């Protein structure tokens, strides 16, 4: 009897405790969920959240790739990709990940929309859920157009990237229609759709299938949209527990990339520009050389950073001082897909097309600068050149970078820093950075840096309509 009590007592107490706690021992992780079970209106928000997750999952990777390929961030770590990207080298295999995931984000939104139509019985056309899906889809198309030299859809042949912008425009149009019908509960998405429309018009203007006048008008319409404020942005969302911002991981948790020798460094050091804020976690001991390749004096801690990743004061390669970006200063920092500030940049650039309207141009620029507490710039009197690489602090001051193109280059850079927009800007401006040699280590780069992503190798291999397509080399 005593033995029985000893053996059975503990399980009995545990079972009683479970009963008292109200726990019903239900298995909460359902594992794979069958399609036939995702047919109730209550599950539609969860399905739309999945489409959001698909987009969020790629936005930071995409923008991080572009930051490393452009002059937004300098690779100071040990990743093989970082080593290649900082020299401007980017292969058809490197291009696979962003391509796959952006297509999947657009596709997932379309699949979810089909399910909404089946389940909601017509009310999806005035549902915030529908508006959200088309915003996600529109941005997935936008990113494909901005980054890839050629695009392809639905296992078809290659197409001009302008077609991606046209698809994005159609998605944003639908998002706007649905959000408007949905009423005040969808205000955020109505504004997001409006920003997206202008972004798409901007892309089509650049590619010659639209016009700068239309793009500028769309941006102005976005600014004028009821409820829009200058600090509004439509963001890809990151969070502590769901999906961590990759920029934070690689600059705060690690020291894989930094701001050293970027335009951001020069701008922040010149006028403490809050848009390019960074912190010097380490500092060169030997500054005799402007760009000390071999760092004869090494790097010392500044005491400004307390990160413990793989060495907060120097890059993960052990060679370089770590200059840490401070825009995405939390693992849950969100990344803008589109913003009201970007609208001002579109309007400013549009004002320089044809016969330049310098007053209108600088008016838009200064509106944004004022928002950030920065001094107004004088109107330029000439188009001038884009900034010359390598950037020096003196070259990018307000006084010295005073022509229209230099101002546009600098202001668009700062306002859209690390949002995945810079590579497209460099390409369409034929920016000196693309053809200038040199980077932090080794001072070598490929003859012409990549200015857009090539057609991914797996698309070329798996798409029968790509056989012999020039986009596949």
């Amino acid at each position, binding site marked *: 009897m005593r033995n029985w009590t000893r053996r059975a007592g503990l399980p009995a107490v545990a079972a009683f405790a479970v009963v008292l706690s109200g726990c019903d021992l239900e298995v909460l*992780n*359902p594992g*794979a*969920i*069958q*399609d036939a079970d*995702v047919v109730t209106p209550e*599950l539609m928000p*969860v*399905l739309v*959240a*999945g*489409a*959001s*997750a*698909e987009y*969020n999952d790629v936005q930071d990777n995409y923008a991080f790739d572009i930051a490393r390929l452009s002059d937004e961030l300098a690779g100071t770590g*040990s990743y*093989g990709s970082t*080593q*290649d990207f900082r*020299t401007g*080298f980017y292969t058809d*295999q490197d291009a*696979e990940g962003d*391509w*796959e*995931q952006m*297509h*999947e984000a*657009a*596709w*997932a939104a*379309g*699949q979810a929309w089909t399910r909404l139509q089946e389940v909601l019985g017509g009310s999806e056309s005035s549902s915030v859920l529908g508006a959200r899906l088309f915003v996600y889809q529109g941005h997935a198309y936008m990113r494909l157009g901005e980054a890839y030299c050629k695009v*392809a*859809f*639905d*296992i*078809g042949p290659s197409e001009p990237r302008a077609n991606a912008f046209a698809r994005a425009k159609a998605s944003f149009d639908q998002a706007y229609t649905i959000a408007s019908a949905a009423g005040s509960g969808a205000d955020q998405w109505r504004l997001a759709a409006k920003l997206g429309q202008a972004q798409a018009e901007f892309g089509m203007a650049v590619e010659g299938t639209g016009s700068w006048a239309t793009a500028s008008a769309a941006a102005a319409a976005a600014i004028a949209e009821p409820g829009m404020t200058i600090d509004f942005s439509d963001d890809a*969302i990151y*969070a*502590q*527990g*769901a*999906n961590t911002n990759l920029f934070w991981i690689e600059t705060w948790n690690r020291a894989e990339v930094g701001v050293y020798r970027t335009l951001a460094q020069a701008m922040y050091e010149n006028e403490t520009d809050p848009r390019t804020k960074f912190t010097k976690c380490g500092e060169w001991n030997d500054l005799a050389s402007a760009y000390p390749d071999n760092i004869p004096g090494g790097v010392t801690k500044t005491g400004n950073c307390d990160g413990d990743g793989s060495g907060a004061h120097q890059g993960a390669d052990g060679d370089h001082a770590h200059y840490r970006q401070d825009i995405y200063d939390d693992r849950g920092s969100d990344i803008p897909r589109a913003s009201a500030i970007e609208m001002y940049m579109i309007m400013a650039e549009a004002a320089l097309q044809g016969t330049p309207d310098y007053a209108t141009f600088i008016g838009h620029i200064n509106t944004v600068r004022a928002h950030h507490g920065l001094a107004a710039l004088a109107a330029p009197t000439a188009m001038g050149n884009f900034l010359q690489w390598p950037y020096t602090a003196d070259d990018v001051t307000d006084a010295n970078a005073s022509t229209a193109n230099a101002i546009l280059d600098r202001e668009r850079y700062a306002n859209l820093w690390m949002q995945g927009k810079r590579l497209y800007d460099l390409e369409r401006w034929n920016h000196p950075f693309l053809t200038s040699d040199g980077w932090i280590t*080794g001072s*070598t780069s*490929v003859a012409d840096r990549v200015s857009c992503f090539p057609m*991914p190798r*797996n*698309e070329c*291999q*798996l*798409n029968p309509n*790509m056989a012999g397509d020039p986009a596949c080399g």
Partner: protein
Amino acid sequence: MKIYEATQADEVVPALIIGNLGNADLGPEVSTELEMGFEASMLDGRMSIDFTKYDQTTRDALIGVQEAPSFGTEEATLRNLGETTNKGYEAILNVSPVRSDFLDWNVNFSYSSNESEITDLGPLQNAGGNLQLGFPIGVEYDPVVMNPTAVGQAEDTELAVLGVVFPQEIIALGTRMTFSQALTLDVLFESQVGHSRTIGIGWATARRETWPHCFGIQNEFNANGRTNLTPNQVVTCVPGKIDWGAWTQDADFIKLRSASLSYRLPDDLIPGTRSVSLSLQGKNLWQTTDYQGLDPEATDRGLDRGEYAFEYYNMAPPRILILNMQVNF
């Protein structure tokens, strides 16, 4: 059947994403196999032979097919569209040349071959890079330099199968000699041929300009460009031009898998014990191979998924020495 997977989105809200599209027309694989062989023992059991030949054909094979990414999903979908063949031999020969109180000597020899081939993929030429029509299951498919030795020329590359994951032949030879029922020497050699590996560590390290074998080529390229270099040298060692395929090498090898020497002490040597034996065993003591990576058997992620095998985040199999003393009371 299309299935969803649970995940989290945005500010940690529940979310569903499509896990797999499914295939409502999916059916079973149908395999037929012809296997024949024999076992023979002769000379009072001093020689035995075991021989097997097999020839298997699988129709309606389940092949995970990845659509082109522009379709929308990255997930491969199973389809009954393949035919694969798998055939080979297995032979084992055991011989006992000497059986006496002084010496008991056994020799073991085994040989196996395996030849697989994807003979049909329906309308497809491949089902992802590792599954290519007309080739064994699991290959490395990447650009290969067509003008490897043309000094000064730019590399001309074409996609091709560069290697096979699984060894096509495995040969083992072992012997055991026991002297006076006390001292035993046991040795096993093994050779695997017909497969390859990619040296991912070399590939990555060369890109970082820290692979010593590439220093000379990199210095030459920095000084004179490709003028004095072959395309093969460029795609192997010059950062920005290095190709994964250039680091794929034949991984044939001969290894001394194990060797052991054991000695059983006389029964009454240590009072109070029934028996005492000492042994020294070594594993992976020696190998010969032309493969330049860590080890021709090292892989980053194993071989069970039909993917191509390569070195990257892995260690080489260690060399092991074991000294053992066994006492029975």
